[in-house]
């Protein structure tokens, strides 16, 4: 690829890998060395980060607010869990199948999603999420209902690494999948399609007036985000060898929204940073007094929205800019 001209060089500079990004991904390896006792938590963080990344694609880039994103997470989770329960415990193929299943669900529902915006959209995503959670609850012959899906037995990863209590395999597996999904998301965001998504977020009214079929774009990104959420759900099922109704719950949809807003929507790393802060804080606070943990999250959320309207990453970016202009 030759970048002959100034405009191309400018656009290429915008999407170049920054040193801080490389440092960030290297730092994700630190838990293996520094906190080997917390690898289970680390893998949960990686899974939540992937889930938040998938929400970022639709919320942060295309401006689609969803209160029911757990539908795809839970659907992927149950698919992966059931495949393993029915005797095929190989993780990678299970992951692919769960991704495909969530993608199909995402594609089907995207036809409804693409027709609405704003409050109607929030209500529809909420409704879809509740619908699926209740369906899973009532189909207890399949899902185990409120007891959760029992009897999920995963085979060793690549036939070598078992998913054990220490979480070494779990974190390695989740981290690699997260990183690969991140590469896909990064590429998508920097593509012409990603530009079209930002166009929808910036001005949905102008899009048809420049010949853009916004509903088609929304259906596509919604399906991709559903696949990614399904992968996150499948990872949770495989690494914990159980699936509970909580994977489909409204609380999970709300949590992931909070995580993304905390970290900063529309910044790719927002969901990941949000997941780290949220999960570590929950781990620490709930150790102090478990019943009041949401009190602190509520406080944190209000403070961030008031003082850092673009999330923690948005605040840091602003700080950097003002430092630079002062220098």
């Amino acid at each position, binding site marked *: 690829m030759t970048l002959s001209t100034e405009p191309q060089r400018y*656009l290429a500079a915008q999407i170049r890998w920054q040193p801080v990004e490389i440092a960030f991904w290297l730092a994700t390896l630190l838990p293996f060395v520094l906190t080997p006792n917390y690898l289970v938590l680390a893998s949960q963080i990686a899974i939540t980060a992937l889930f938040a990344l998938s929400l970022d694609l639709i919320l942060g880039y295309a401006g689609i607010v969803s209160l029911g994103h757990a539908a795809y997470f839970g659907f992927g989770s149950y698919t992966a869990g059931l495949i393993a329960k029915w005797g095929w415990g190989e993780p990678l193929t299970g992951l692919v199948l769960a991704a495909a299943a969530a993608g199909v669900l995402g594609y089907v529902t995207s036809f409804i999603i693409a027709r609405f915006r704003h409050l109607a959209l929030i209500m529809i995503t909420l409704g879809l999420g509740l619908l699926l959670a209740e369906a899973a609850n009532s189909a207890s012959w399949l899902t185990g209902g409120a007891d959760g899906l029992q009897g999920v037995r995963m085979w060793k990863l690549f036939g070598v690494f078992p998913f054990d209590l220490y979480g070494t395999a779990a974190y390695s597996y989740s981290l690699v999948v997260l990183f690969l999904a991140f590469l896909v998301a990064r590429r998508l965001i920097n593509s012409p399609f990603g530009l079209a998504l*930002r166009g929808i977020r910036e*001005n949905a009214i102008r899009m048809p007036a420049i*010949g853009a079929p916004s509903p088609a774009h929304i259906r596509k990104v919604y399906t991709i985000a559903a696949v990614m959420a399904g992968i996150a759900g499948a990872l949770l099922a495989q690494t914990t060898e159980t699936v509970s109704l909580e994977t489909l719950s409204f609380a999970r949809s709300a949590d992931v929204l909070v995580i993304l807003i905390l970290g900063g929507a529309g910044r790719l790393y927002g969901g990941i940073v949000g997941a780290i802060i949220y999960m570590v804080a929950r781990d620490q606070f709930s150790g102090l007094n478990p019943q009041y943990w949401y009190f602190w999250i509520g406080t944190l959320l209000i403070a961030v929205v008031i003082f850092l309207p673009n999330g923690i990453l948005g605040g840091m970016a602003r700080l950097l800019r003002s430092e630079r202009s002062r220098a």
Partner: protein
Amino acid sequence: MSVPALSTRGLDKSFGSLVVARDIALDLPQGERYALIGPNGAGKTTLINLITGMLKPDKGQIFLGDQEITSLKPDERVKCGLVRTFQVNTLFPHLSALEAVTLAVCERRGYAGSWWQELPAYGDAVEEAYAILVSLRLGANCYRPTHELAYGQQRLLEIALALATKPKVLLLDEPAAGVPQGESAELFAVIANLSQDIAVLFIEHDMNVVFRFAHRIIVMVGGRILVQGTPQEIAADMRVREVYLGGARHG
């Protein structure tokens, strides 16, 4: 005579008992510059909304060349070569001017659905967008976010976005709205210099500009076309004078 670039037949539209368009028939020949004038509330912007598909007419037909487009969606009409700008800036505030115009070019070239290659790889689209911006004297500011551009530059970006779709027919809704008089002449010089392949219909309140740039003028009052003709005919028309000077028949 060749087929007009744009024509409408018997367009009707009402909101309840309020008639905003009644039996609108117009022909815009290829490459011509027509002005659409009339007092506030005459239905000028409504007519543009009807023609571009942002409003559905109750009755009537719209043709682009010899193709009927009455039932097409707004984005499909743009693909056929019919594009508009907005009276109030309707831009992408946090995209740079270059990104915004590149987006429009990508949509036209069919790149906008592809997500496996990064934007700089589509050099042809970026180059075309940049060339459009340079031709509208926005080249030096094209890397700045839209919301940081001066108001007059944002008005030009409105036109740049429309041009990026390679239109056959361009509908300009008060392109110089809010621009100081000195700069509005500059803006209309840009419009006058557009390719002769593009037919232009523009709404404008400044009569000096209208009489200087329009080949023909369409006068709307109360959702109807009152009269259309050459600038000389319109200047001499008693009914038009009455509307503008008498003010007795506001729509």
